[in-house]
Protein backbone atom coordinates (compact mmCIF):
# COMPACT_ATOMS: atom_id res chain seq x y z
CA UNK A 1 0.00 0.00 0.00
CA UNK A 2 3.01 2.22 0.43
CA UNK A 3 3.05 3.07 -3.25
CA UNK A 4 -0.45 4.47 -2.93
CA UNK A 5 0.86 7.37 -0.86
CA UNK A 6 4.59 8.01 -0.86
CA UNK A 7 4.15 11.03 1.37
CA UNK A 8 2.86 9.07 4.35
CA UNK A 9 5.41 8.45 7.10
CA UNK A 10 3.97 6.00 9.59
CA UNK A 11 5.91 5.06 12.68
CA UNK A 12 5.38 2.62 15.49
CA UNK A 13 7.01 3.58 18.78
CA UNK A 14 8.01 0.79 21.09
CA UNK A 15 10.20 0.03 24.07
CA UNK A 16 9.52 -3.72 23.97
CA UNK A 17 9.71 -6.35 21.22
CA UNK A 18 6.78 -5.71 18.91
CA UNK A 19 3.67 -7.78 19.49
CA UNK A 20 2.69 -7.80 15.86
CA UNK A 21 4.73 -7.53 12.72
CA UNK A 22 3.99 -4.05 11.31
CA UNK A 23 3.27 -3.64 7.61
CA UNK A 24 6.28 -2.75 5.42
CA UNK A 25 5.25 0.93 5.15
CA UNK A 26 5.50 1.38 8.92
CA UNK A 27 8.89 2.20 10.40
CA UNK A 28 9.62 1.24 13.98
CA UNK A 29 11.31 3.61 16.41
CA UNK A 30 12.92 1.80 19.30
CA UNK A 31 13.30 3.15 22.80
CA UNK A 32 14.97 1.84 25.92
CA UNK A 33 15.65 -1.88 25.97
CA UNK A 34 14.32 -2.38 22.46
CA UNK A 35 17.15 -0.35 20.91
CA UNK A 36 19.65 -2.33 18.87
CA UNK A 37 22.10 -2.34 16.00
CA UNK A 38 20.64 -1.48 12.62
CA UNK A 39 17.38 -0.21 14.03
CA UNK A 40 15.90 3.26 14.28
CA UNK A 41 16.88 4.08 17.84
CA UNK A 42 16.16 6.95 20.15
CA UNK A 43 19.85 7.15 21.01
CA UNK A 44 20.78 8.00 17.42
CA UNK A 45 17.76 10.01 16.35
CA UNK A 46 17.37 12.20 19.42
CA UNK A 47 20.23 11.54 21.85
CA UNK A 48 19.19 14.67 23.72
CA UNK A 49 16.09 12.87 24.99
CA UNK A 50 17.72 9.55 25.84
CA UNK A 51 18.27 10.35 29.54
CA UNK A 52 14.70 11.68 29.75
CA UNK A 53 13.06 8.52 28.43
CA UNK A 54 11.87 7.43 31.89
CA UNK A 55 10.05 10.72 32.48
CA UNK A 56 8.74 11.06 28.94
CA UNK A 57 7.84 7.54 27.93
CA UNK A 58 6.55 7.37 24.38
CA UNK A 59 6.81 11.14 23.98
CA UNK A 60 10.58 10.73 23.62
CA UNK A 61 9.83 8.51 20.64
CA UNK A 62 7.61 11.21 19.16
CA UNK A 63 10.46 13.70 19.35
CA UNK A 64 12.72 11.13 17.71
CA UNK A 65 10.17 10.70 14.94
CA UNK A 66 10.23 14.44 14.30
CA UNK A 67 13.99 14.25 13.73
CA UNK A 68 13.49 11.24 11.47
CA UNK A 69 10.90 13.07 9.34
CA UNK A 70 13.00 16.22 9.12
CA UNK A 71 16.23 14.44 8.26
CA UNK A 72 15.20 11.50 6.14
CA UNK A 73 11.69 12.18 4.88
CA UNK A 74 11.52 15.88 4.04
CA UNK A 75 8.93 15.01 1.38
CA UNK A 76 6.43 13.78 3.98
CA UNK A 77 2.87 15.02 3.55
CA UNK A 78 1.31 13.07 6.38
CA UNK A 79 2.70 11.62 9.57
CA UNK A 80 1.17 8.70 11.40
CA UNK A 81 2.05 7.35 14.82
CA UNK A 82 1.07 4.24 16.64
CA UNK A 83 2.48 2.64 19.75
CA UNK A 84 3.44 -0.90 20.44
CA UNK A 85 -0.04 -1.79 21.58
CA UNK A 86 -2.15 1.25 20.75
CA UNK A 87 -3.24 2.50 17.36
CA UNK A 88 -6.01 4.48 15.76
CA UNK A 89 -8.03 2.87 13.01
CA UNK A 90 -10.55 4.59 10.81
CA UNK A 91 -13.32 2.22 11.80
CA UNK A 92 -14.08 0.15 14.83
CA UNK A 93 -12.52 -3.27 14.66
CA UNK A 94 -13.62 -5.25 17.66
CA UNK A 95 -16.47 -3.18 19.05
CA UNK A 96 -15.43 -4.18 22.57
CA UNK A 97 -14.81 -1.24 24.85
CA UNK A 98 -12.11 -1.29 27.41
CA UNK A 99 -13.83 -1.61 30.78
CA UNK A 100 -11.72 1.13 32.37
CA UNK A 101 -10.98 3.55 29.54
CA UNK A 102 -14.14 3.67 27.52
CA UNK A 103 -12.86 5.74 24.62
CA UNK A 104 -10.69 2.77 23.66
CA UNK A 105 -11.56 -0.59 22.18
CA UNK A 106 -9.69 -3.72 23.07
CA UNK A 107 -8.62 -5.88 20.15
CA UNK A 108 -7.40 -9.39 20.84
CA UNK A 109 -4.14 -10.10 19.10
CA UNK A 110 -5.40 -13.01 16.93
CA UNK A 111 -7.96 -10.76 15.22
CA UNK A 112 -5.11 -8.75 13.71
CA UNK A 113 -3.41 -11.71 12.05
CA UNK A 114 -2.15 -11.49 8.53
CA UNK A 115 -3.08 -8.39 6.55
CA UNK A 116 -5.70 -7.29 8.98
CA UNK A 117 -3.27 -5.24 11.05
CA UNK A 118 -2.08 -3.40 7.93
CA UNK A 119 -5.69 -2.79 6.86
CA UNK A 120 -6.55 -1.44 10.29
CA UNK A 121 -3.60 0.94 10.31
CA UNK A 122 -4.05 2.22 6.77
CA UNK A 123 -5.48 5.77 6.95
CA UNK A 124 -6.75 5.90 3.37
CA UNK A 125 -6.75 9.43 2.05
CA UNK A 126 -7.83 11.09 5.31
CA UNK A 127 -5.76 14.09 6.30
CA UNK A 128 -6.36 13.44 9.97
CA UNK A 129 -7.18 10.23 11.72
CA UNK A 130 -7.49 10.73 15.45
CA UNK A 131 -9.23 9.01 18.28
CA UNK A 132 -12.80 9.90 19.12
CA UNK A 133 -12.75 12.81 21.59
CA UNK A 134 -13.70 12.36 25.21
CA UNK A 135 -15.42 14.81 27.50
CA UNK A 136 -14.28 15.04 31.08
CA UNK A 137 -17.58 16.30 32.44
CA UNK A 138 -19.92 13.52 33.49
CA UNK A 139 -22.71 15.57 35.02
CA UNK A 140 -23.41 18.96 33.54
CA UNK A 141 -23.56 20.85 36.83
CA UNK A 142 -20.00 19.88 37.64
CA UNK A 143 -17.80 20.93 34.78
CA UNK A 144 -14.36 19.42 34.95
CA UNK A 145 -12.01 20.77 32.31
CA UNK A 146 -8.30 20.08 31.85
CA UNK A 147 -7.26 21.70 35.11
CA UNK A 148 -9.73 19.94 37.40
CA UNK A 149 -9.14 16.63 35.70
CA UNK A 150 -5.40 16.98 35.98
CA UNK A 151 -5.64 18.09 39.60
CA UNK A 152 -7.64 14.98 40.41
CA UNK A 153 -5.39 12.47 38.70
CA UNK A 154 -1.91 13.96 38.76
CA UNK A 155 0.20 16.61 40.48
CA UNK A 156 -1.37 19.91 39.53
CA UNK A 157 1.78 22.00 39.94
CA UNK A 158 3.28 20.24 36.95
CA UNK A 159 0.50 21.35 34.64
CA UNK A 160 0.73 24.89 36.01
CA UNK A 161 4.44 25.01 35.28
CA UNK A 162 4.03 23.43 31.89
CA UNK A 163 1.39 25.96 30.90
CA UNK A 164 3.49 28.79 32.29
CA UNK A 165 6.32 27.66 30.06
CA UNK A 166 3.99 27.37 27.07
CA UNK A 167 2.87 30.98 27.62
CA UNK A 168 6.47 32.10 28.03
CA UNK A 169 7.35 30.56 24.66
CA UNK A 170 4.28 31.91 22.93
CA UNK A 171 2.77 28.48 22.29
CA UNK A 172 -0.28 29.57 24.27
CA UNK A 173 -1.42 33.14 24.25
CA UNK A 174 -1.69 34.68 27.69
CA UNK A 175 -5.43 35.15 27.25
CA UNK A 176 -5.78 31.53 26.17
CA UNK A 177 -4.79 30.05 29.51
CA UNK A 178 -8.26 30.28 31.02
CA UNK A 179 -9.87 28.62 28.02
CA UNK A 180 -7.23 25.90 28.09
CA UNK A 181 -7.88 25.12 31.74
CA UNK A 182 -11.64 25.10 31.17
CA UNK A 183 -11.49 23.03 27.99
CA UNK A 184 -13.49 19.90 28.49
CA UNK A 185 -12.86 17.95 25.28
CA UNK A 186 -9.73 15.89 24.96
CA UNK A 187 -8.50 13.90 22.02
CA UNK A 188 -6.79 10.90 23.61
CA UNK A 189 -3.15 10.83 22.64
CA UNK A 190 -3.12 14.44 21.49
CA UNK A 191 -0.78 14.75 18.52
CA UNK A 192 0.99 11.52 19.40
CA UNK A 193 -1.48 8.90 18.25
CA UNK A 194 -3.04 8.92 14.80
CA UNK A 195 -2.38 10.51 11.44
CA UNK A 196 -1.80 14.22 10.86
CA UNK A 197 -0.77 16.51 8.00
CA UNK A 198 3.02 16.75 8.15
CA UNK A 199 3.27 20.55 8.37
CA UNK A 200 0.75 20.73 11.21
CA UNK A 201 2.34 17.85 13.05
CA UNK A 202 5.93 19.07 12.74
CA UNK A 203 4.92 22.49 13.97
CA UNK A 204 2.93 21.12 16.91
CA UNK A 205 5.69 18.75 17.99
CA UNK A 206 8.30 21.47 17.65
CA UNK A 207 6.28 23.63 20.03
CA UNK A 208 5.68 20.83 22.50
CA UNK A 209 9.31 19.79 22.40
CA UNK A 210 10.42 23.33 23.21
CA UNK A 211 8.10 23.51 26.19
CA UNK A 212 9.11 20.08 27.47
CA UNK A 213 12.79 20.96 27.10
CA UNK A 214 12.37 24.07 29.23
CA UNK A 215 10.36 22.16 31.84
CA UNK A 216 12.91 19.37 32.08
CA UNK A 217 15.71 21.91 32.50
CA UNK A 218 13.99 24.02 35.11
CA UNK A 219 12.23 21.31 37.06
CA UNK A 220 14.32 18.25 37.51
CA UNK A 221 12.09 16.21 39.74
CA UNK A 222 11.39 12.65 40.58
CA UNK A 223 7.91 11.30 40.97
CA UNK A 224 6.81 7.81 41.77
CA UNK A 225 6.09 5.14 39.21
CA UNK A 226 3.10 6.21 37.12
CA UNK A 227 3.38 9.90 38.01
CA UNK A 228 6.98 9.97 36.80
CA UNK A 229 5.80 10.69 33.26
CA UNK A 230 4.53 14.15 34.14
CA UNK A 231 5.62 15.99 31.02
CA UNK A 232 4.10 13.34 28.84
CA UNK A 233 0.69 13.87 30.44
CA UNK A 234 1.03 17.62 29.99
CA UNK A 235 2.16 17.21 26.39
CA UNK A 236 -0.94 15.15 25.67
CA UNK A 237 -3.17 18.00 26.89
CA UNK A 238 -1.30 20.64 24.96
CA UNK A 239 -1.29 18.49 21.82
CA UNK A 240 -4.99 17.90 22.18
CA UNK A 241 -5.57 21.64 22.57
CA UNK A 242 -3.57 22.47 19.44
CA UNK A 243 -5.52 19.82 17.58
CA UNK A 244 -8.86 21.17 18.78
CA UNK A 245 -7.91 24.67 17.72
CA UNK A 246 -7.03 23.41 14.26
CA UNK A 247 -10.29 21.44 13.96
CA UNK A 248 -12.39 24.35 15.15
CA UNK A 249 -10.68 26.58 12.62
CA UNK A 250 -11.41 24.12 9.85
CA UNK A 251 -15.01 23.23 10.52
CA UNK A 252 -16.12 26.25 12.52
CA UNK A 253 -17.88 26.00 15.83
CA UNK A 254 -17.19 27.64 19.14
CA UNK A 255 -15.59 26.30 22.27
CA UNK A 256 -18.70 26.00 24.43
CA UNK A 257 -22.29 24.93 24.34
CA UNK A 258 -24.25 23.86 21.32
CA UNK A 259 -21.90 25.34 18.76
CA UNK A 260 -19.04 23.36 20.26
CA UNK A 261 -21.16 20.22 20.08
CA UNK A 262 -22.13 20.84 16.46
CA UNK A 263 -18.55 21.59 15.49
CA UNK A 264 -17.33 18.50 17.26
CA UNK A 265 -19.89 16.37 15.44
CA UNK A 266 -18.61 17.74 12.16
CA UNK A 267 -14.89 17.21 12.72
CA UNK A 268 -15.48 13.89 14.37
CA UNK A 269 -17.32 12.72 11.27
CA UNK A 270 -14.42 13.81 9.08
CA UNK A 271 -11.41 12.90 11.15
CA UNK A 272 -12.53 10.70 14.00
CA UNK A 273 -11.33 7.13 14.14
CA UNK A 274 -11.18 4.52 16.83
CA UNK A 275 -8.47 4.12 19.41
CA UNK A 276 -7.56 0.48 19.89
CA UNK A 277 -5.57 -1.43 22.43
CA UNK A 278 -4.06 -4.72 21.36
CA UNK A 279 -4.46 -7.29 24.09
CA UNK A 280 -3.62 -10.89 24.62
CA UNK A 281 -6.25 -13.26 25.96
CA UNK A 282 -6.14 -12.22 29.61
CA UNK A 283 -6.99 -8.56 29.75
CA UNK A 284 -8.55 -7.12 32.88
CA UNK A 285 -8.80 -3.47 31.82
CA UNK A 286 -6.37 -0.82 30.76
CA UNK A 287 -4.20 0.86 33.34
CA UNK A 288 -3.61 4.47 32.37
CA UNK A 289 -0.15 5.43 31.21
CA UNK A 290 1.05 2.01 30.12
Amino acid at each position, binding site marked *: MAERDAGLVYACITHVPLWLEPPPWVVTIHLGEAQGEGRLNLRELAPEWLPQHPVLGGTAGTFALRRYVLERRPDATRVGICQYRKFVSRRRISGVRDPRYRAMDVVPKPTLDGDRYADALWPGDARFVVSKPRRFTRVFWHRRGYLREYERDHCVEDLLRFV*AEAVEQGVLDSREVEAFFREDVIVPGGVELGVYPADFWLDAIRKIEGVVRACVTKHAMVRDAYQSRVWSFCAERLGSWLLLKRFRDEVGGGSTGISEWLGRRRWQARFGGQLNLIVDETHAGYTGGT
Partner: protein
Amino acid sequence: MPDTRAGPDVAGAWSPPRLAYGCVTHVALEVDFPEFIEPIRLGAAQVEGAFNLRDLAPEWEPHHPILGGLAGTFAMKNHVLAHHPDADRVGLCQYRKFVSKRRLSRVVAPSYKAMDVVTLPALSRALLADVMVPDDAWLLPRPFLLSNWRKHSDMLEQYSRVHHPQDLLRFVAEAVEQQLLDKAEVPDLLAEELMLPGGIELGVFPADFWIRSVSAIESVVRACVARYPLAREGYNARAWSFCTERLGSYLVLRHLRASPASKVSFFALRRAVPNIGPRGAFGRLNLIARGTDDYVIGV
Protein backbone atom coordinates in the same frame (compact mmCIF):
# COMPACT_ATOMS: atom_id res chain seq x y z
CA MET B 1 4.45 53.66 75.86
CA PRO B 2 6.00 56.57 73.98
CA ASP B 3 5.96 59.94 75.62
CA THR B 4 4.71 62.53 73.18
CA ARG B 5 4.89 65.40 75.66
CA ALA B 6 1.54 66.57 74.42
CA GLY B 7 -1.82 67.37 75.92
CA PRO B 8 -4.46 64.79 76.81
CA ASP B 9 -6.38 65.47 73.59
CA VAL B 10 -3.59 63.97 71.50
CA ALA B 11 -4.48 60.38 70.85
CA GLY B 12 -0.95 59.56 69.82
CA ALA B 13 0.01 59.33 73.44
CA TRP B 14 -2.10 56.24 73.71
CA SER B 15 -0.90 52.99 72.30
CA PRO B 16 -3.27 50.10 71.73
CA PRO B 17 -2.22 47.05 73.71
CA ARG B 18 -0.39 44.21 72.02
CA LEU B 19 -0.72 45.66 68.55
CA ALA B 20 2.35 45.83 66.36
CA TYR B 21 1.71 48.33 63.59
CA GLY B 22 4.22 48.98 60.83
CA CYS B 23 4.28 51.45 58.02
CA VAL B 24 6.33 50.30 55.04
CA THR B 25 8.00 53.15 53.23
CA HIS B 26 10.80 53.84 50.81
CA VAL B 27 10.48 57.62 51.06
CA ALA B 28 10.41 60.08 53.95
CA LEU B 29 6.96 59.92 55.54
CA GLU B 30 4.86 63.00 54.96
CA VAL B 31 1.96 61.87 57.06
CA ASP B 32 2.09 62.37 60.78
CA PHE B 33 1.22 58.81 61.76
CA PRO B 34 0.38 58.04 65.40
CA GLU B 35 3.25 57.11 67.68
CA PHE B 36 2.50 53.43 67.80
CA ILE B 37 3.01 53.09 64.05
CA GLU B 38 6.62 52.17 63.42
CA PRO B 39 8.11 52.97 60.02
CA ILE B 40 9.77 50.01 58.30
CA ARG B 41 12.27 51.66 56.02
CA LEU B 42 13.32 50.43 52.60
CA GLY B 43 15.70 51.66 49.94
CA ALA B 44 16.78 55.26 50.21
CA ALA B 45 14.64 55.86 53.28
CA GLN B 46 16.87 53.68 55.44
CA VAL B 47 18.67 55.59 58.17
CA GLU B 48 20.94 54.63 60.99
CA GLY B 49 19.13 53.45 64.11
CA ALA B 50 15.71 53.00 62.49
CA PHE B 51 13.89 49.82 61.51
CA ASN B 52 15.60 49.18 58.21
CA LEU B 53 15.16 46.44 55.67
CA ARG B 54 18.92 45.89 55.61
CA ASP B 55 18.93 45.13 59.34
CA LEU B 56 15.62 43.31 59.70
CA ALA B 57 15.70 41.18 56.55
CA PRO B 58 19.09 41.51 54.87
CA GLU B 59 18.18 38.51 52.74
CA TRP B 60 15.61 40.59 50.86
CA GLU B 61 17.63 43.78 50.53
CA PRO B 62 18.99 42.93 47.05
CA HIS B 63 15.49 41.96 45.90
CA HIS B 64 13.83 45.20 46.93
CA PRO B 65 13.56 46.47 43.32
CA ILE B 66 11.54 43.45 42.21
CA LEU B 67 9.55 43.02 45.41
CA GLY B 68 8.74 46.63 46.27
CA GLY B 69 6.78 46.91 49.49
CA LEU B 70 6.68 43.15 49.88
CA ALA B 71 10.28 43.22 51.11
CA GLY B 72 9.06 45.53 53.86
CA THR B 73 6.33 43.06 54.77
CA PHE B 74 8.93 40.36 55.29
CA ALA B 75 11.01 42.80 57.34
CA MET B 76 7.91 43.57 59.41
CA LYS B 77 7.46 39.87 60.13
CA ASN B 78 11.02 39.64 61.42
CA HIS B 79 10.49 42.84 63.39
CA VAL B 80 7.36 41.46 65.07
CA LEU B 81 9.10 38.21 65.92
CA ALA B 82 12.12 40.01 67.33
CA HIS B 83 10.63 43.02 69.05
CA HIS B 84 6.95 42.30 69.62
CA PRO B 85 6.84 38.62 70.54
CA ASP B 86 3.74 39.16 72.65
CA ALA B 87 1.72 40.97 69.97
CA ASP B 88 -1.65 39.42 69.27
CA ARG B 89 -2.45 41.69 66.32
CA VAL B 90 -0.28 42.93 63.51
CA GLY B 91 -1.12 45.97 61.43
CA LEU B 92 0.41 47.18 58.21
CA CYS B 93 0.11 50.33 56.19
CA GLN B 94 2.22 51.86 53.47
CA TYR B 95 3.62 55.32 53.02
CA ARG B 96 0.50 56.46 51.23
CA LYS B 97 -2.02 53.70 51.71
CA PHE B 98 -3.81 52.65 54.85
CA VAL B 99 -7.03 50.97 55.92
CA SER B 100 -9.49 52.86 58.05
CA LYS B 101 -12.45 51.60 60.06
CA ARG B 102 -14.78 54.02 58.32
CA ARG B 103 -14.72 56.05 55.16
CA LEU B 104 -12.77 59.24 55.49
CA SER B 105 -13.68 60.74 52.16
CA ARG B 106 -16.10 60.08 49.37
CA VAL B 107 -13.60 60.61 46.62
CA VAL B 108 -13.11 57.28 44.94
CA ALA B 109 -9.74 56.86 43.23
CA PRO B 110 -10.59 57.06 39.53
CA SER B 111 -8.27 54.24 38.49
CA TYR B 112 -8.95 51.94 41.43
CA LYS B 113 -12.49 52.05 42.67
CA ALA B 114 -11.86 50.05 45.81
CA MET B 115 -9.90 52.94 47.24
CA ASP B 116 -10.72 56.44 48.48
CA VAL B 117 -8.47 59.41 48.02
CA VAL B 118 -7.85 61.46 51.14
CA THR B 119 -5.82 64.62 51.20
CA LEU B 120 -2.94 65.25 53.52
CA PRO B 121 -4.39 68.21 55.42
CA ALA B 122 -7.48 66.19 56.32
CA LEU B 123 -5.44 63.70 58.32
CA SER B 124 -4.53 64.46 61.88
CA ARG B 125 -2.66 62.21 64.19
CA ALA B 126 -5.69 61.84 66.43
CA LEU B 127 -7.96 60.93 63.55
CA LEU B 128 -5.55 58.31 62.27
CA ALA B 129 -5.10 56.82 65.72
CA ASP B 130 -8.86 56.49 65.94
CA VAL B 131 -9.60 54.98 62.52
CA MET B 132 -6.57 52.75 62.05
CA VAL B 133 -7.04 50.66 65.18
CA PRO B 134 -9.81 48.09 64.84
CA ASP B 135 -12.28 47.21 67.57
CA ASP B 136 -11.70 43.58 66.81
CA ALA B 137 -8.87 41.35 65.65
CA TRP B 138 -9.31 42.16 61.98
CA LEU B 139 -9.35 45.30 59.91
CA LEU B 140 -9.38 44.60 56.20
CA PRO B 141 -10.09 46.62 53.12
CA ARG B 142 -13.45 45.71 51.68
CA PRO B 143 -13.01 43.01 49.05
CA PHE B 144 -14.39 43.69 45.63
CA LEU B 145 -15.80 41.45 42.94
CA LEU B 146 -13.74 41.00 39.82
CA SER B 147 -16.85 40.06 37.86
CA ASN B 148 -19.60 42.45 37.04
CA TRP B 149 -23.03 42.02 35.51
CA ARG B 150 -21.67 42.31 32.00
CA LYS B 151 -18.61 40.16 32.21
CA HIS B 152 -17.41 37.21 34.18
CA SER B 153 -13.93 37.51 35.57
CA ASP B 154 -11.82 35.74 38.13
CA MET B 155 -8.32 35.75 39.49
CA LEU B 156 -6.69 34.04 36.51
CA GLU B 157 -8.63 36.05 33.94
CA GLN B 158 -7.86 39.32 35.65
CA TYR B 159 -4.22 38.47 36.16
CA SER B 160 -3.83 37.34 32.53
CA ARG B 161 -5.38 40.60 31.40
CA VAL B 162 -3.11 42.91 33.36
CA HIS B 163 0.07 40.89 33.93
CA HIS B 164 1.80 37.77 32.64
CA PRO B 165 -0.18 34.66 33.63
CA GLN B 166 2.89 32.42 33.66
CA ASP B 167 4.11 34.18 36.81
CA LEU B 168 0.90 33.44 38.67
CA LEU B 169 0.92 29.82 37.49
CA ARG B 170 4.49 29.31 38.65
CA PHE B 171 3.80 30.99 41.95
CA VAL B 172 0.75 28.82 42.59
CA ALA B 173 2.69 25.72 41.55
CA GLU B 174 5.32 26.56 44.13
CA ALA B 175 2.66 27.15 46.79
CA VAL B 176 1.19 23.72 46.04
CA GLU B 177 4.60 22.11 46.18
CA GLN B 178 5.25 23.68 49.57
CA GLN B 179 1.82 22.54 50.74
CA LEU B 180 0.59 26.02 51.48
CA LEU B 181 -2.26 25.16 49.14
CA ASP B 182 -3.86 21.82 48.63
CA LYS B 183 -3.84 20.72 45.00
CA ALA B 184 -7.62 20.50 45.04
CA GLU B 185 -7.80 24.20 45.90
CA VAL B 186 -6.04 25.30 42.74
CA PRO B 187 -9.07 25.45 40.43
CA ASP B 188 -10.99 27.37 43.10
CA LEU B 189 -8.11 29.74 43.70
CA LEU B 190 -7.75 30.55 40.03
CA ALA B 191 -11.53 30.97 39.78
CA GLU B 192 -11.80 33.16 42.88
CA GLU B 193 -13.94 36.17 42.09
CA LEU B 194 -13.41 38.15 45.29
CA MET B 195 -10.26 40.11 45.74
CA LEU B 196 -9.01 41.74 48.89
CA PRO B 197 -6.83 44.69 47.90
CA GLY B 198 -3.38 44.38 49.38
CA GLY B 199 -3.87 40.78 50.47
CA ILE B 200 -2.08 40.34 53.78
CA GLU B 201 -0.08 43.53 53.37
CA LEU B 202 -2.66 46.15 54.29
CA GLY B 203 -4.82 46.21 57.40
CA VAL B 204 -4.78 44.55 60.78
CA PHE B 205 -4.66 40.77 61.26
CA PRO B 206 -4.49 38.36 64.17
CA ALA B 207 -0.79 37.87 64.80
CA ASP B 208 -0.72 34.08 64.66
CA PHE B 209 -2.55 33.97 61.33
CA TRP B 210 -0.45 36.75 59.88
CA ILE B 211 2.93 35.39 60.96
CA ARG B 212 2.01 31.96 59.69
CA SER B 213 0.81 33.23 56.34
CA VAL B 214 3.66 35.66 55.74
CA SER B 215 6.26 33.06 56.64
CA ALA B 216 4.69 30.58 54.23
CA ILE B 217 4.47 33.16 51.47
CA GLU B 218 8.04 34.26 52.11
CA SER B 219 9.19 30.73 51.55
CA VAL B 220 7.22 30.52 48.27
CA VAL B 221 8.65 33.84 47.08
CA ARG B 222 12.14 32.67 48.03
CA ALA B 223 11.74 29.57 45.88
CA CYS B 224 10.33 31.56 42.96
CA VAL B 225 13.08 34.16 43.09
CA ALA B 226 15.68 31.41 43.10
CA ARG B 227 14.11 29.35 40.35
CA TYR B 228 13.00 32.03 37.92
CA PRO B 229 15.37 34.93 37.55
CA LEU B 230 12.80 37.13 35.86
CA ALA B 231 13.92 40.06 33.83
CA ARG B 232 10.73 41.91 33.09
CA GLU B 233 10.62 45.52 32.18
CA GLY B 234 9.19 48.27 34.31
CA TYR B 235 5.92 47.70 36.02
CA ASN B 236 5.81 43.93 35.57
CA ALA B 237 9.19 43.50 37.23
CA ARG B 238 7.23 43.21 40.48
CA ALA B 239 5.53 39.98 39.45
CA TRP B 240 6.01 38.16 42.75
CA SER B 241 4.46 41.06 44.61
CA PHE B 242 1.37 40.89 42.44
CA CYS B 243 1.14 37.14 42.98
CA THR B 244 1.58 37.55 46.72
CA GLU B 245 -1.30 40.00 46.83
CA ARG B 246 -3.56 37.43 45.15
CA LEU B 247 -2.44 34.55 47.28
CA GLY B 248 -2.62 36.63 50.47
CA SER B 249 -6.12 37.70 49.54
CA TYR B 250 -7.11 34.08 49.00
CA LEU B 251 -5.59 32.96 52.30
CA VAL B 252 -7.49 35.63 54.24
CA LEU B 253 -10.76 34.81 52.49
CA ARG B 254 -10.19 31.11 53.05
CA HIS B 255 -9.54 31.73 56.74
CA LEU B 256 -12.60 33.93 57.19
CA ARG B 257 -14.88 31.59 55.28
CA ALA B 258 -13.81 28.70 57.42
CA SER B 259 -14.22 30.57 60.68
CA PRO B 260 -17.49 30.06 62.53
CA ALA B 261 -18.29 33.77 62.35
CA SER B 262 -19.30 33.49 58.74
CA LYS B 263 -22.93 32.48 58.78
CA VAL B 264 -25.37 32.18 55.99
CA SER B 265 -27.75 35.04 56.19
CA PHE B 266 -30.25 36.80 54.01
CA PHE B 267 -27.55 39.15 52.77
CA ALA B 268 -25.47 36.25 51.54
CA LEU B 269 -27.66 36.47 48.47
CA ARG B 270 -26.07 39.80 47.67
CA ARG B 271 -22.76 38.72 46.38
CA ALA B 272 -21.42 42.25 46.23
CA VAL B 273 -21.24 42.34 50.01
CA PRO B 274 -18.94 39.62 51.24
CA ASN B 275 -20.83 38.01 54.03
CA ILE B 276 -17.80 36.67 55.76
CA GLY B 277 -15.67 37.53 58.69
CA PRO B 278 -16.49 39.06 62.05
CA ARG B 279 -18.66 42.15 62.27
CA GLY B 280 -16.69 45.28 61.59
CA ALA B 281 -13.79 43.47 59.99
CA PHE B 282 -14.06 45.40 56.77
CA GLY B 283 -13.05 49.01 56.48
CA ARG B 284 -11.94 51.15 53.64
CA LEU B 285 -8.66 51.43 51.80
CA ASN B 286 -7.38 54.98 51.52
CA LEU B 287 -4.81 56.63 49.33
CA ILE B 288 -3.13 59.72 50.66
CA ALA B 289 -2.85 62.29 47.90
CA ARG B 290 -0.99 65.50 48.05
CA GLY B 291 -3.17 67.21 45.53
CA THR B 292 -5.29 66.04 42.68
CA ASP B 293 -2.77 63.61 41.27
CA ASP B 294 -4.18 60.29 40.28
CA TYR B 295 -3.11 56.88 41.47
CA VAL B 296 -1.16 54.63 39.16
CA ILE B 297 -1.46 51.00 40.23
CA GLY B 298 1.71 49.48 41.57
CA VAL B 299 3.22 52.73 42.85
